[in-house]
């Protein structure tokens, strides 16, 4: 997580404040600190931490707990230990959701990373209308995913959708975008990209701005081509930013749900049912299976956590190498 600190604000009213600045806090000599300064921080963090504890920390831990119970239609709980995990691992639906989630996440993370870096590089040139393009690409981020799913679902509709009526008029056939599992997954990935990529473009742009221009001047002096500058200076120096993009899009990709709900509803034949929808349906479809839904959440969390750590360690090694 220290990487995020690297992206921390450098409020530049003058030279950047050193990052370690917060360690020498207001009053270092604890012994003489008046009582109100000793109590104050606890009071400041209390309201936030109270809600945090009640609705994030406690439930997160309780989730492990629930995953070891059979929920008996949501009303009577009996302890089953690892039973839910066993049951889940032998369930075709779980594997289907897991497979689709992995496929989605792999494509989503890769494409998000590549496209956002590509777009940011384009925008980082001397381009007229940069602010306009930046605004346009970010626009979908603020739109309700439910609405995004509705609109795209309507555009991709087989018979009367905008896309197919255009394709049909051009004599290009009318593929069943949301009817064929592979196409539907491609559509879901595309819409996910459409919805989120602008956010990552901004992150990468900020990262690019952090690269000292003297590197490029020196490189140009040595006669390096644009491509060489990109490969030898930009991409290596952008690595911390790239890592942030990968980790964030990973977390984002593993919890995709809302726009898929209105775009495909998880269909066709479960072809775009990802883990969060699987959890929702196990939690509230009869018979209610809180236990196995919670178990699936634990598995999903472990996957995100493991991938984040691996990504982090990999980057640490690259950096020190």
């Amino acid at each position, binding site marked *: 997580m220290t990487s995020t600190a690297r992206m921390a604000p450098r409020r530049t009213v003058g030279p950047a404040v050193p990052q370690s600045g917060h360690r020498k806090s207001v009053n270092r000599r604890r012994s003489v600190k008046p009582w109100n300064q000793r109590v104050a921080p606890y009071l400041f963090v209390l309201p936030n931490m109270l809600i945090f504890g009640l609705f994030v920390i406690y439930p997160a831990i309780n989730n*492990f707990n629930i995953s070891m119970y059979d929920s008996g239609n949501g*009303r009577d709980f009996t302890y089953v230990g690892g039973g839910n995990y066993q049951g889940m691992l032998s369930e075709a639906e779980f594997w289907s959701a897991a497979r689709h989630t992995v496929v989605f996440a792999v494509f989503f993370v890769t494409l998000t990373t590549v496209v956002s870096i590509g777009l940011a590089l384009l925008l980082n040139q001397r381009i007229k209308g940069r602010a306009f393009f930046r605004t346009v690409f970010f626009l979908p981020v603020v739109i309700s995913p439910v609405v995004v799913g509705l609109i795209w679902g309507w555009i991709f509709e087989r018979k009367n959708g905008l896309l197919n009526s255009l394709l049909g008029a051009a004599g290009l056939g009318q593929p069943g975008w949301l009817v064929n599992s592979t196409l539907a997954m491609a559509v879901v990935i595309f819409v996910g990209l459409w919805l989120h990529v602008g956010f990552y473009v901004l992150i990468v742009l900020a990262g690019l701005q952090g690269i000292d221009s003297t590197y490029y001047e020196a490189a140009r002096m040595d006669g390096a081509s644009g491509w060489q500058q990109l490969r030898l200076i930009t991409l290596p120096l952008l690595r911390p930013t790239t890592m942030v993009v990968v980790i964030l899009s990973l977390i984002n990709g593993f919890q995709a749900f809302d726009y898929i709900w209105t775009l*495909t509803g998880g269909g*066709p034949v479960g072809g775009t049912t990802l883990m969060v929808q699987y959890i929702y*349906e196990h939690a*509230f*479809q*009869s*018979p209610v299976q809180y236990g196995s839904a919670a178990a699936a959440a634990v598995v999903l969390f472990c996957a995100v956590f493991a991938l984040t750590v691996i990504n982090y360690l990999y980057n640490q090694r690259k950096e020190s190498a």
Partner: protein
Amino acid sequence: MRSPRISLTVASAAIVLLASCAPGSSSDGSKTKQADDKKLTYLYFTDGPDEQATRDLIDQFEKKTGAKVNLQIVPFDNLEQRLQARLSGNNAPDVARLTDITPFRADLLDLNKFQKGALGGKFLKGADAYVTGKGGELLAVPSDLTMNGPLINVDQFKKAGVPLPDPKKPWNWDEMVKDAKKVQAANKTQNAIAMDVSGHRFSTMLSQYGTDFFDKTGKKPAMDTGKATAAVKRFAELNASGTMPKDLWLQAGTKYKAANEIFLAQQTPVYLSGNWQVSAFAKGAKFSWAAAPNPCRKTCGGFPGGKFMASFKQSKHQKLAAEFIAFMNSEKSQEKLAKEANFLPTRKDLISSGVKYPVRDADMQTFLDDVKRTPQAAYGSAYSPAFGATADASVKELAKVLAGDSSPKEAVEAIRAAAQKALKDAQ
């Protein structure tokens, strides 16, 4: 990550602490504290015109009792999930309209406690076992009976010069498909036959092919592999050839989806649905249409279904809720609902006296004729506690066949297995 040790210790301590207590509190509804206000929440799904008739009846009930009924309409495909969420959040509605009471059996209120006189023994016998609890409780009231059957676009049949099927002498499956295709060709519609994405509708086809999920007691799996495979095969062929809209089934995934829009847009001359569409079409169809007899194969007739009204142990207005259910299912109310929404009544007195429908009476008679032709085993299946889950599974399996992911034979095996499991779960 500077102090992982501390956080680990704290976290593990917390886990140990928490693991010792069970995660949920079980609520025993019989002790639910009753509220004094006269307010009811009625969770409802609608097929169209029944909504207005229901609202009118609610007005009457409110005037009569001074109560206030809050009608909550949710989409049918999300009804069960929402009800489950409400129940586990201790926010049950006071009354709900359901097609399948099995998942909620343990939560339902015994209506005999309040309204035994008004409700006991008044409804059709077939549903008795289904709505009765282990200790003889009355868990729900069948509020209307439904009969599945085809609806046809009369204009399109006429234009194609195809004679309409005779309600008294039903056509068979081959004739229906042949006629529908002829009409499709003459009118250039997208499809010839459309069926709702529903296991209940598919059960109709199964029954006509001579088999059902369960036997007539509803407690034993009875699906004949050979006959069921034949039905699934036919269904798959019809979809593969474009006679039926394959997209509809595939796109719906596992959710319920009606095909009524396709029929209303005149893109299919034959629509396999049921009598609850009649009143909506009477208002919404811009062409002339009619109910047609169910096609025969091994047997004739359609497939019964119904809606139920129930209250919950969690309800804070149990007495009023039971009173409301009794009111909505009194002879007068049911007759009004039946007439205005073209529903089939469930009360013995109304069945024997018969309901004269102000609109589309002839079509309703077609459905009633099919009620008589429907075999007993179909009723056994329809009122089996395991029907809902098995029907859902069959939608899933059929979609897999249409997507080319499994064969008709595999689908039938999977549906049989699902029926077994559903019976076990329902006990």
